[in-house]
Structure formats: C-alpha cells, structure tokens
C-alpha cells in the first residue's frame, strides 16, 4: 500500500528524519511509535506534502504506484482529495470555530466525493447516528461540542469518504482515557468494516497494543524496529524498543 524507502527530511541543514524505511500493508492498522521529537509527525507531513517551508524531503514513498515525495503539487492535491484522509491531534482546532458543523462536515466529506448536499445529509445522518452523535450537532458550532464529539465527527467524515489510507496523527492525545478507548474502538471498526488502511501515529504503547497490527518504532529520526505487533512485543530486538516496553505500566 505505502512503501517508504530511505526517506530523509532536512530543515536548515539539520537532519530531522534519517533514511527511514518502512511498509504499510493494505487493510491493516500500522502504528508509528516514538518519543516526542523522534520525527513521527515530520514523516507524516512529508507523506502528505505539507512540510513547513524550508524543509526538504528526499527518498521515496510509493503510494498506489506514485512517489509521494516527487509528485507535483497538483497531483498531490488529487491524491489527498481522493485517497487520503487525515485526523489531527486536536479536533477542536481542526474545525473552523465560526462555521456551523454542517458546512464543515460537508466540506470534509460530501464535497470531496462529489455528493450533493441532500445526498450528504442523508448519508451523514446515518453515520452520525451510528457513532452515537445526535443529528442536531450539524446545526451547532464546533465550540459547542466537546473534544471527543469533534474527534468522532472526524471519524464520521472518514467513514463517509472511505479513503484508501487514513493517517491519524496522535488522534487521542487530547482525549481522556475513556474517550481514547472509545476512539480506538472506532478506528478498529473502520478498519474491520471498510477495510481502511490506517497509519496511526502515537506515543502510547497501550494504544499500539490495543489497536495496531504492525508497528514501526522511531527514535531520533531513525526507524529502529519494524514488525508485527505481537512479535515485537514478545521479542523486541532493539534496546530502545526493549526500554520502551519496560516503561509500560
């Protein structure tokens, strides 16, 4: 599905990510885990083509036969529109606080798939219902909803769009434990029900253990270990992974 090969990212001569290679298999939940500043989010930015100005990525990241690092902006736009969906850390900031949810949900889902406003309303209502959100939230403003609800709205859009690859960048770090669990459950359901491939960025081992099939361990810009979650948990090879596993509660 997504094959990253010798991806390096440089900002002002400083190496942020160093020749990292990994593979995200289709239909699985793959998790990138690592401490803060290990280059997880930068890797994602490079994949999405949204690196901050001054940053430069080299290497290859082949997604559906296209190298994401080398494609033109226009092509990247097409890929992002049709095949990718992203969920960011802080759902509260992912929505424009002065626009009603209906318009924003439509912008994130219906407009991308080319549905009319009516089709969107029908379909979104069913999805919201399924996620335990009342249909009234579409008439509300984002600041009237809680962080957990907003994150669920994001999932609702992902369910609607049915992307090939869902990239979730620390989606749970702003949520409390109960909501985290609920959210991870939703991700798993998305994966099982629609077969969506998910790339889950996190620093929380429990989430990896709970949700992911495959895992990639990053440290200081380098991929130190990759493999099946079960295998890595049982027989960690790299000393850092071992330390990480030992530090679990």
């Amino acid at each position, binding site marked *: 599905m997504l094959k990253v090969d010798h991806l390096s990212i440089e900002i002002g001569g400083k190496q942020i990510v160093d020749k990292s290679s990994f593979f995200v298999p289709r239909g699985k939940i793959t998790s990138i885990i690592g401490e803060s500043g290990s280059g997880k989010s930068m890797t994602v930015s490079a994949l999405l083509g949204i690196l901050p100005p001054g940053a430069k990525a080299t290497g290859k990241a082949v997604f559906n036969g296209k190298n994401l690092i080398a494609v033109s902006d226009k092509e990247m736009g097409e890929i992002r529109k049709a095949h990718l969906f992203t969920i960011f*850390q802080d759902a509260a900031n992912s929505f424009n*606080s002065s626009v009603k949810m209906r318009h924003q949900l439509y*912008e*994130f889902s219906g407009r*991308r798939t080319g549905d009319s406003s009516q089709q969107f309303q029908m379909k979104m209502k069913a999805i919201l219902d399924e996620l335990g959100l009342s249909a009234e939230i579409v008439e509300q403003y984002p*600041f009237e909803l809680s962080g957990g609800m907003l994150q669920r709205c994001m999932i609702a859009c992902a369910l609607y769009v049915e992307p090939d690859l869902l990239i979730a960048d620390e989606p749970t770090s702003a949520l409390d434990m109960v909501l985290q669990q609920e959210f991870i459950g939703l991700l798993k359901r998305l994966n099982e029900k629609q077969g969506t491939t998910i790339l889950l960025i996190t620093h929380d081992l429990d989430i990896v253990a709970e949700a992911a099939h495959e895992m990639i361990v990053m440290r200081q810009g380098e991929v130190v270990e990759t493999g099946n979650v079960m295998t890595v948990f049982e027989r960690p090879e790299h000393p850092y992974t071992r330390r990480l596993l030992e530090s679990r509660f």
Partner: protein
Amino acid sequence: MRPQKALTFWCAVLGIIVILTACASFLSSYGPNDMNLDEVYVSPGEDHLLGTDHLGRDVFSRLLEGGKVTLTVASVSVLLSLVIGILYGGISGYVGGAVDTVMMRFLEALITIPSLIIILAFQAFMQGGMWSMALIIGITGWLVTARIVRSEFIRLKDAEFVKMATMFGTPIWKILFGHMLRNSVPAIFIVTLFNFAGAIFIEVSLSFLGIGVPPAIPSWGNMLYYAQNDILIGAWWIGLFPGVMIFVTILAINFIGEALKNPERRRLDA
C-alpha cells in the same frame, strides 16, 4: 452597570443619534441654511428648540444636518480604510516572508508620521469638499486595521483547520474568506469601531480649524468653528449642542468598543 447592560445602553444612544441625523429633514421645521436676519441669536425656546445663530439659522436643524455630514464622512472614510487595511494586512500576513517585511517597514514608516500632518498636506491641494475629506481620512486611517488583520492572518494561517482545508484541496479564496477573514471579524470589527470614533474626531478637528468641510455645508466641526465668536457675546447654545453631540457620540462608540473587546464575549461574536 453590568457589561451587557452597558453595551445595550450605549448602542441605544448611538442608534438614537444615527436615526435622528438620518431623519434630519423630517424632524426639523427649518432648512439648515435658511437665514432669517430678524431672528438672530434667539435663545433656545419654543419657536427654535435650540435657538438660532448669527445668521438666524435654526441650530437644531443644523445640528441634525451637521451630524449627517459628520457621520457620513466618518462612515465612508472608515469603510475605505477598512478595505485598504484588510487588503494590505491580508496580503502581508498571508504571503509572509520578504513581502511581509517590506510592507510592514513601509507601514511603520507611515505610522511615525502623525496623520494630521498628512491630512493637512492633502487638504492643501485638494481644496476639500465633503467627499474628498472622507477620502483623505480614509487613506490615512487604515494603518492600525492593516496591522490587526496581518496579525490575525498570521495566527490563522497556522491554525489546524486552515491546514486541513489546504490539504483537502479547498479553493484558496474559500480559505481566505471563509476561514481567515471570517475568523478575524471580531478583531476587525472592534478596531473599525475605534477607527470610526477617530474619524469623527478628525473631521471635527479639521472643520474646527477651518480646513475641513466647506463652510456652506453644516457639520459639527463647522458649527463649533463659528460658535467661537458667538460664545464671547453669550450665545452659548450655538457651541454647546454640537459639542455635546460630538462628546456623546464618541463616548458611545468607545464604550461599545470596550464592551465588545471583553474577552468573555469573544466567542459570542465569533
């Protein structure tokens, strides 16, 4: 007074002033320039509600008509400065980099020159009428708006929802207007309100100095200018009422601005 009540009160005051001046021609029984040399310096009373001036013109009619002129000049100039400020600040904030640096240094250079001097220079060769007056105040009054818009745009450019929108291929004009400008509205609104008060003040000051609106057109500033001599002979009403109107109007606008600036209200405005 509680903030909410204060806001309502001052909005009502400003509203009454605006309505009174807008309906000037219906409310006054004399034309603002109708002279009657048999009735000069009549003190406030039944026939002339607020008295007459040295040419026997009705002060009440002139006060309303003058308010219309003053408020129109202020509104037009504020609209003009709003447009220039949003464009200048928006471009500077959104484009960023070298463009931003150059634009901001230029703006800082302009800010160091007191706007009154620029206005005086302009007035000197434009031989100011009412509209040129509005134009001049407008093109000197956008500096603060531009700064506010720039800082809002810089803040919002990095907001996650803007990144999301960019990523999902939202058209750029939609991001600029729907996301960035829309979320800057509370800040822009407040600075524009204060600009409005400032514009009234500048119009009044210039007319008071005799270099603003031409004498044939009544404005609050003009009225004060002519009232200078009248006060010496004891005709206090000619100067007092325009003065009070100016005072109350600017006070109302400032209080409304202060009430809206209150951070607790921010979300409601958004």
